[in-house]
Structures are given as structure tokens and as C-alpha cells.
């Protein structure tokens, strides 16, 4: 049988050889370091604006750059913009100072024209990023280093929407006919799907979709050279194979570690696991406004009763879900938003032990002493252990006589139920890319109209609250704004629109000697990797 050399030994040998060479030739400063990086799926496209999707952004962040970056603690950092703020003359205008001396991979200089072009391309359909730039009216270059973005009104948080909007070369886009982002319906492949020209720290060397993507450090990059000089990115769909590839030494970093393997990997010699909170919370919600529920035997709509909603919050055992379903890998919380998002408070987060006696009383008070039946819709391939979380809730609600009929299915069937208001009771996970509560309110709390409330499956509608939510968008006094956010949350928590379960925890597993922190948006940057 063919023998493949033991990869770890071969690697160690290579490194020792390199070390020996470095001793002889002191002029050798940095060793070429390759990182072999595996995760569950591939980027969908290399086009910088076509898809607003996690894995796509994660890979593109290595090739393209944004005006502002997101640090591991969630704060904003300089990237292609060195300074930003709301104009002193006009509160509707954002002013960006663009970094000088930045080169594209093809050697041309990046100018403010490229920035204007990119922001325009990103906000023009069919770009997947358009929704994040809906309030932009005009982007103009004022001088060689300044770009003005005029908004339709004051937009104090607009800069938070820019962390995934990449800057590309105008000349390159025009030369290759990709002035707008690719259109699915057009029926042909755009040049930018498999070719790139960014300003990022790595250049695309090889792109074999769903097989292998190779990136090499860009020597003319404006920042300090990263320790990792080459990235080999391989998607491995099957969880067992992904872990096996790490154990056999064929990959160095596994980004999507299956929950059930975390503990075992931690105990494996030569492998270390890092954990961190993800920007995503998992919660249940329910139709609380319809007159009756399609899937229930109850008279009227039990979810409309505040007592029933309170009883459910007393019946759920979040700690049990953490220990049994998530094997400890989650942060149980009653707050329907991730902890680093503006507006989160310790009070919202706190929850007590389940109190079934009180819950039973509340059910009786609400007029459902014998309980009722209802269907719970749940995805089974979207969030960590999503179906098991729903199963656990079925058992917990049975103790207060709510007979839950679980309907777990694939995400492409699950999400349209929420979109079309065809579910009475459902599980949803929500990430907050802007790191501000307004994002939660806009999509989940505001009545469904226009761009608001698209994931508001509770049909909750409160005109007074809607007004407050809309006001948030244009408030420039941040203290006042934070007070209003707290006010809205008080109301939302009081109404129990959400039955939150936990925040997801991310885990990355890697070969010993590699240091990489968990990124809250699950977008690890290989530029931040260091070696022992």
C-alpha cells in the first residue's frame, strides 16, 4: 500500500531545516508559514458585493478590505479609512478620510474614486449589500483623501454597516465588465466570481470552488506583513472528516468544530481549542396577535395571553439545555440579543430557576388549566443543535400541559414560514452585524411594513413603539438614544415577545503552536495568527 509520509513529522523536519538554515544565514528573517484552514462550507463567490453571507465575507476579508474593520471585541478599527465621523456642517453627511499609499494587487494605486465606485456598486441592486446602504443618497469624492456619504437623514450608526462592504478597483471592474454585481437571473458567470483585484493582505492565487482556494501574502500591502504567508482554504462538509483531517495533521485550523467533538479535541495532544461568544442568540417566538392559531386546539390564541407567555418563560430550563443539549457550549441568557451589542444589560440577561407551580397557576389564570396543543416549527440544519433545542423545549412545555407537536425541517422550508406568517410558534437565531439594538428592533419588533419587520413572526404591532424605533435611526445624541433603546427594551421584555434560550459559542480547533482568537462575527483573520 502506498505510504504517505507522516505529515507532522515531515512538517517538523521542514521547520527544523529552516531553523538550521536561519542559523547559518542570519539574513533570513521570516520563515514562510502556510496555514491550512478548513471549515464546513466555501465562500459562495469572490465578488465583493454580490452576497451578504458569512463564509463569503470571511474569505473576501483576506483579499479585499473595508473602510472600517471589526476587532475581536466588537469595536471598530481603522482599515482603508483612517478617520470617520459625521460632518460638522451637515448632520446628514458622513466624512471618511481615506488611507494614502494603498495599492491594489495589480499594482495600481487606490484612489477616492475607487471608494466612491465601490460604495455605489455595493448599494446598487442586485448587490446583496444594498439593504445596508438603503439610506445613502449620494457618495462623492471631495478631495484626494476625503469621501462624503450623504444620507437621506441623520444616520448616526451608518459606519457600523460598513464592516463588510469591500473596496474594489474601478478600472479593473470596468475592464472586466463587472461595474455592477453579478445578477443571478442574467444566466452568465461574471468575471469577478472567480477573479479578484483587492487591496487586502493576501492575493488570490488559486480558486477551485468547493475544493481549494490558495492565497499568498501581498508584498505591497500597506500594513505590517502577517506571519502567515500562505493560506490554503479547504471546505470539508462532513463533521467527522473535518475533525479527522485536523487529527491527522492535514489541516492546521478547523473553524466549525462540531459541539460533540470539542471536549475530546481539547484532551488530544497537539490540538488546542479556543472558544468565544458568537454574535448570535437563539430564541423562540410566537404569533401573539392573531385571533386563533392554525395548529392549536385551543379556543382563541393562547399566545395572546401575557400569563401564558410568562408561564412558558417559567417552564423553560435554560441551564438544562446548556448542559444536556449543548454539552456546556452555550451562554444561557434571557436577553434576546448577544452580550456585546449596544443595549444589552445584566438585568435582561438574568433569569431564575424554572417554577412549574407558578407556571401552572398562570396557565389556569389565563383560562388554560388543561393546557393546549400547538405546532413548533424548527430548522434542523441552521444553528448549533437547533432540532435538539426544540425537542428539549417540547419536554419542558409538556410539564405545564402544552402539547407541542415538533415540525423540524431544513432551513429553506423553515424560514419562508416566518416570512409568510405561516407559523404559530418557531425558533429563530439572530446575529446583530451592526452591534446595536436598533437592528434587532428594525427586523424583529417593528410592525411589518416596507423594510421593517421582515422577520417579525410574532405579528407584534405597536404603533407607539414603531415610532420610537424609527426615531432611533436619526438620533445623533447617543446618550439620549441609549435611553430610548433601554425604554424600548423595557417594553419588549415586558411583553415577552421573545423567549430567548442562549447565545451561541464559537469554537476553533487548531494545531498547538498556532494562536488565533475567536472572532465574534465568526470571521477569523489569518493576519491575526501568530506562531509560538
Amino acid at each position, binding site marked *: *500500500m*502506498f*505510504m*504517505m509520509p*507522516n*505529515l*507532522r513529522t515531515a512538517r517538523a523536519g521542514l521547520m527544523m531545516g529552516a531553523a538550521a538554515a536561519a542559523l547559518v544565514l542570519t539574513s533570513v528573517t521570516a520563515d514562510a508559514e502556510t496555514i491550512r484552514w478548513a471549515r464546513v*462550507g466555501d465562500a*459562495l*463567490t469572490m*465578488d465583493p458585493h454580490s*452576497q*451578504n453571507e458569512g463564509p463569503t465575507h470571511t474569505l473576501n476579508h483576506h483579499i479585499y478590505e473595508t473602510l472600517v474593520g471589526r476587532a475581536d471585541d466588537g469595536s471598530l478599527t481603522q482599515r482603508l479609512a483612517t478617520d470617520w465621523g459625521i460632518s460638522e456642517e451637515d448632520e446628514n453627511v458622513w466624512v471618511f478620510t481615506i488611507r494614502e499609499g494603498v495599492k491594489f494587487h495589480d499594482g495600481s494605486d487606490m484612489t477616492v474614486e475607487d471608494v466612491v465606485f465601490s460604495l455605489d456598486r455595493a448599494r446598487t*441592486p442586485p448587490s*446583496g*449589500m*444594498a*439593504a445596508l446602504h438603503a439610506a445613502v443618497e449620494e457618495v462623492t469624492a471631495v478631495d484626494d483623501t476625503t469621501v462624503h456619504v450623504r444620507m437621506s437623514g441623520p444616520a448616526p450608526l451608518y459606519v457600523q454597516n460598513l464592516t463588510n462592504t469591500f473596496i474594489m478597483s474601478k478600472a479593473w471592474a470596468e475592464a472586466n465588465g463587472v461595474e455592477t454585481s*453579478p445578477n*443571478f*437571473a*442574467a*444566466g*452568465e*458567470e*461574471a468575471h469577478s*466570481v*472567480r477573479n479578484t483585484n483587492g487591496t487586502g493582505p493576501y492575493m488570490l492565487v488559486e480558486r*477551485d*470552488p*468547493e*475544493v*481549494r482556494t490558495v492565497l499568498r501574502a501581498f508584498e505591497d500591502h500597506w500594513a505590517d506583513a502577517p506571519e502567515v504567508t500562505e493560506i490554503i482554504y*479547504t*471546505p*470539508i*462538509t*462532513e463533521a*467527522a*472528516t473535518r475533525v*479527522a*483531517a485536523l*487529527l*491527522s*495533521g*492535514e489541516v492546521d485550523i478547523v473553524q466549525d468544530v462540531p459541539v460533540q467533538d470539542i471536549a475530546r479535541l481539547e484532551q488530544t495532544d497537539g490540538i488546542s481549542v479556543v472558544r468565544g461568544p458568537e454574535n448570535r442568540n437563539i430564541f423562540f417566538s410566537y404569533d401573539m396577535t392573531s385571533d386563533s392559531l392554525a395548529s392549536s386546539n385551543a379556543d382563541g390564541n393562547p399566545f395572546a395571553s401575557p400569563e401564558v407567555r410568562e408561564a412558558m418563560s417559567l417552564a423553560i430550563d435554560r441551564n438544562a439545555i446548556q448542559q444536556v443539549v449543548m454539552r456546556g457550549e452555550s451562554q444561557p441568557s434571557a436577553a434576546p440579543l448577544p452580550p456585546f451589542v449596544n443595549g444589552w444589560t445584566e438585568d435582561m440577561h438574568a433569569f431564575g430557576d424554572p417554577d412549574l407551580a407558578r407556571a401552572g397557576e398562570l396557565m389556569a389564570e389565563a383560562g388554560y388549566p388543561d393546557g393546549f396543543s400547538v405546532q413548533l416549527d424548527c430548522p434542523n440544519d441552521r444553528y448549533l443543535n437547533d432540532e435538539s433545542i426544540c425537542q428539549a423545549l417540547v419536554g419542558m412545555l409538556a410539564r405545564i400541559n402544552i402539547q407541542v407537536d415538533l415540525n423540524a425541517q*431544513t*432551513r*429553506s*422550508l423553515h*424560514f*419562508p414560514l416566518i*416570512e409568510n406568517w405561516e407559523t404559530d410558534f418557531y425558533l429563530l437565531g*439572530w*446575529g446583530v452585524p451592526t452591534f446595536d439594538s436598533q437592528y434587532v428592533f428594525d*427586523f424583529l419588533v417593528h410592525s*411589518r411594513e*416596507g*423594510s421593517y419587520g*421582515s422577520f417579525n413572526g410574532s405579528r407584534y404591532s405597536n404603533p407607539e413603539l414603531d415610532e420610537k424605533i424609527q426615531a432611533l435611526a436619526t438620533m445623533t445624541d447617543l446618550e439620549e438614544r441609549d435611553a430610548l433603546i433601554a425604554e424600548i427594551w423595557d417594553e419588549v421584555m415586558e411583553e415577552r415577545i421573545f423567549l430567548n434560550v442562549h447565545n451561541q459559542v464559537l469554537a476553533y480547533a487548531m494545531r498547538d503552536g498556532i494562536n488565533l482568537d475567536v472572532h465574534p462575527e465568526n470571521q477569523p483573520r489569518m493576519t491575526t495568527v501568530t506562531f509560538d
Partner: protein
Amino acid sequence: MLTVSAVYAGSDMLAFILRRLVQSVIVMLTVALVAFALFRFVGDPIASMVGQETTLAERAEMREALGLNDPFVVQFAKFVTRAATGDFGISYRLQQPVMELILSRLPATLELALVSGVAAFVFGVGFGVYTALNRGNWLSGTIMTASLIGVSLPTFLIGVLLIWVFAVELQWLPSFGRGETVYIGNWWRTGLLTESGRASLILPAITLGLYQMTLIMRLVRAEMLEVLRTDYIKFARARGLSNRAVHFGHALKNTLVPVITITGLQLGSIIAFSIITETVFQWPGVGALFINSVRFVDVPVMAAYLMLIALVFVVINLIVDLLYYAVDPRLRVDRANTRH
């Protein structure tokens, strides 16, 4: 020199082929129809195509632009007319033309299927003959028991076990991927010409071929035992022929006809059912492409893949039918006689 009956047979052959071709087209259309009917139940592609910020109005617009709101009949008719010209549209997920995607993934699947098919045949026949000739010895017993595992364990588990033993524990073979590949001509990417490519092929080929090998082995063994009991084997022995000549020249030769038929037909299944093996080993073939497309509700790729698999089966069946026609003289004679 053509005899009258040969001319008749020739035109008869043509009619036979034409009839088969028409039937094939009907089969393909039926598959397309069934596939299309099923797609209505796999969900909404828009949900996986857009970000969570996209408004409901934009989603509706996109659905309209992709023609997802058209009546079923219209969608189907559009698909068939475009498919007839080889145009299967563009992948919702990877934004590449579907035909190009499938053609670029096909060599990986075909190489895997071919290697595991050949291995299954060679080892199946070998083990089958050995166990038939050496009934009762310990090695035959072991092979027979081990072959039970081959039929009873699910492919997924076999794959993971092999990865665990040969990639993680022994570190002899890679656990995933296809290794290094090189191009033959413009689009055929092969892993057979590189060392890492061949090494990567071993585990998936075993996983995919194990069931077929067991099947062939048991078939050969049963047929061999049957044939060895027949009179002409006794006569052959009586003539004083060597064991070798009797076993391989007479016995094995007569068992091979059904074995070859089964192997040929199984080749279609190997291609069609490589989905699981490809997923376990991250093998970049059409099976893995299909599974990823199902997850994403990438309807154009799913439709094209199902049509491709239908085509494979139709072509294999057509070839088998033609071979029977060519091989079995009775068929021809009967037809020719009815004309007179």
C-alpha cells in the same frame, strides 16, 4: 456479401435502436417532470440566496425575476426547451453556468466510479473463486464473515472507519479531497497521474466499491459451486485436465456471463450513489455538488444532476439491450423469421 435475412436484420436493428431512443427520450422527460414536481417541496431558494436585511419586497422581486412565480407548466416547459439546447442556466449558489459546473465535477466522479468498479470486479471475482474452491478453510471463513460486514454496514460508517484507521491512526492515506490533479486536454482533470491523487483515491474507492465487491464475490462463489457440480466438469476431470485448467478454463469462464452483466449495471448505481462517499471524503464530484445544491435549494444544479443520472442509466440500458441483441442469436433469428 449480404444475404436477404441480414438486410432484414439490419433494418430491424435500426428500428430497434430508434424505438429504444424514443423510449429513452420519454424516460428523460418523465424524470424531468418528476424532478420538477419534487423541487416544489425542497423549499424556497431565495431564503438561502439573500442576507437577512433584504426586504420582503426585494425578495418578491427576486422570485419574480427568477421565474419562480410562474405556473408549474410554464417553468417546466422553459426548462425542457432550454435543456434541449444544453442550457441548464446558472447556479444560484456558485453563480457559474450549471453545464460547466457539472462537466468540471464529472471527471472526479467517473474516475472514482471506474476505479472502485474495477477493484470491486477484480477482488470480487478473486475472493469468490478462492472461497468457492477452498470451502471450510479458515481464510475463506474469514473472507465470508468480513463480506457480511461489507453488505451490512452503511457506506457512511465504512468511510468514517477507514478514515479513522488509515488517516488518523496510521496516517498512511489522506482523509479528504482528491490530492493534486492535472489536466488531460482542456477539461478532464485527473488525479490518477499524481502520487497524492492516487493515494487520495484509495479510501473512497474502497468505501464505494465494498458493497459491489461483496455482491460480485457472493455471486461468483455461488455460480462456481453450481458449475463445479455439473457433468462437464466431471468429464473434464476424467479427461485428466489439471485443476487449474478445470477451475479457470471451464468453471470460471462459465460463471462470468451473469457477473459481467451485473457489474455493468452496477456501474450506473456506483455513479448515482457516490453521493454519500463523496460527502464523507469531501470528494469534489457531482454527488457532493448535488448534496450541497440540495442544502441550498440550487434548483438549476439539482435539475441538471438528476437529468445526468437519468441519462447515465438510459445509456447503460441502451448499450446492454444492444449487446443482448448482438450477442443473443435467437433474438435475431426469431425476428427475421417472423418477417417471412
